[in-house]
């Protein structure tokens, strides 16, 4: 059962951290609609994290969601490095959103037929919501990839920068083979292959080049608790109010 716990924890942590990052665009989006889009996606992602932490609490006796989100050491987090990176410029945030959400969409699609019922049920719910995130990302990648010389150049540079981090999403769990044999999850490698096929089509349509990333350049470590310095700063900020007076009722 540890393998399924690891799987749910890393998904929840990814959602929480990328959700927090998306919320950092609230009030700063380049146009009102984009401000609303990133804020809405942040709300969705943090809701997904809450539901996933809920499964850990109800099925595996882990602490409650607030404790898991706000009161856990950095080394206990299992998010990928990609989710941790600061929002940077808008081209980076859009490209991360595109690469990350395509992986999310496929992951939830795969999990909707999982043999672990609580996860399968939630996945069937979430996959419809993620569809909107993917459509949002696709429309911007296409528009900016085919836009001006500057927009095309920015999207290509962001894609080149993001890819070694994006591939870190698919870092395997230790006991992944158990998940595969038990029909819980078909595995990160399978997910990565489907993801590459799917994003390749969009990247090609947008007139961008698919970057080639050597294996050793991929940013791994997040799934075993080794993180970038950015996660530390994010968690400090995220849990600041919670730590001020623990256990306080609002």
């Amino acid at each position, binding site marked *: 059962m540890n393998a399924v716990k690891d799987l749910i924890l890393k998904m929840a942590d990814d959602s929480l951290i990328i959700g927090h990052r998306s919320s950092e665009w609230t009030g700063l989006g380049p146009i009102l609609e984009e401000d*609303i*889009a990133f804020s809405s996606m942040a709300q*969705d992602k943090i809701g997904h994290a809450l539901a996933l932490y809920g499964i850990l609490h109800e099925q595996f006796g882990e602490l409650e969601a607030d404790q898991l989100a706000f009161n856990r050491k950095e080394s206990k987090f299992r998010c990928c490095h990609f989710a941790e990176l600061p929002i940077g410029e808008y081209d980076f945030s859009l490209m991360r959103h595109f690469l990350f959400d395509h992986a999310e969409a496929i992951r939830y699609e795969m999990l909707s037929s999982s043999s672990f019922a609580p996860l399968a049920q939630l996945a069937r719910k979430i996959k419809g*919501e993620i569809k909107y995130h993917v*459509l949002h990302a696709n429309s911007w990648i296409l528009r900016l990839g085919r836009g001006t010389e500057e927009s095309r150049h920015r999207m290509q540079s962001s894609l080149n920068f993001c890819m070694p981090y994006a591939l870190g999403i698919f870092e395997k769990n230790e006991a992944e083979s158990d998940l595969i044999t038990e029909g819980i999850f078909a595995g990160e490698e399978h997910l990565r292959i489907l993801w590459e096929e799917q994003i390749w089509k969009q990247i090609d349509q947008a007139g961008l080049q698919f970057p080639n990333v050597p294996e050793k350049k991929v940013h791994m470590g997040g799934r075993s608790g080794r993180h970038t310095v950015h996660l530390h700063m994010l968690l400090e900020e995220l849990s600041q109010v919670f730590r001020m007076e623990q256990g306080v009722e609002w």
Partner: protein
Amino acid sequence: MISTESNVGKTTILLALKEVMDPELPFLSVVDLGIIGDIDIHENRVLLKILPTFTACPAIQLMREQIIEKILSLGFYGAEVEVDYSIPWNSDRISEEGKKKLEKFGLATADTHQGNFSIDDIEQSKCPHCSSCNTTMNSIFGSTLCRSMHYCFDCRQGFERFKPL
């Protein structure tokens, strides 16, 4: 005193819940919104399942409290509300009456799609003000998670739409 005979009890509860409104759409009841799932009555205690429209719907907690309060006011000894993901809510669950109310309010609704919707289903919308189909989508995300933003070229008004899901 309510009869504990299950069907009578369920009908009474559903009728009463027509008075519990979605706080984001205060004219639409939780029944018309289609979020009420199984209702189980045992020894005068009610266990009711709700299906959230979106996982992150911030109104769930408030609706849960109001549903409990309403059920207890009917004379049941106990009421519990659980969030249920085993049946995913989708926009087909909004009642016909609910769809009419949404349109009257100025919110477009989606046609029936049985959970499979394409980009066209999302972008193409009939204007709730003038019924024109000559419209465009401005943004997939709107003022709440369940709404998108659109514009009508004929009556030149912006409008929102209850997203297909």
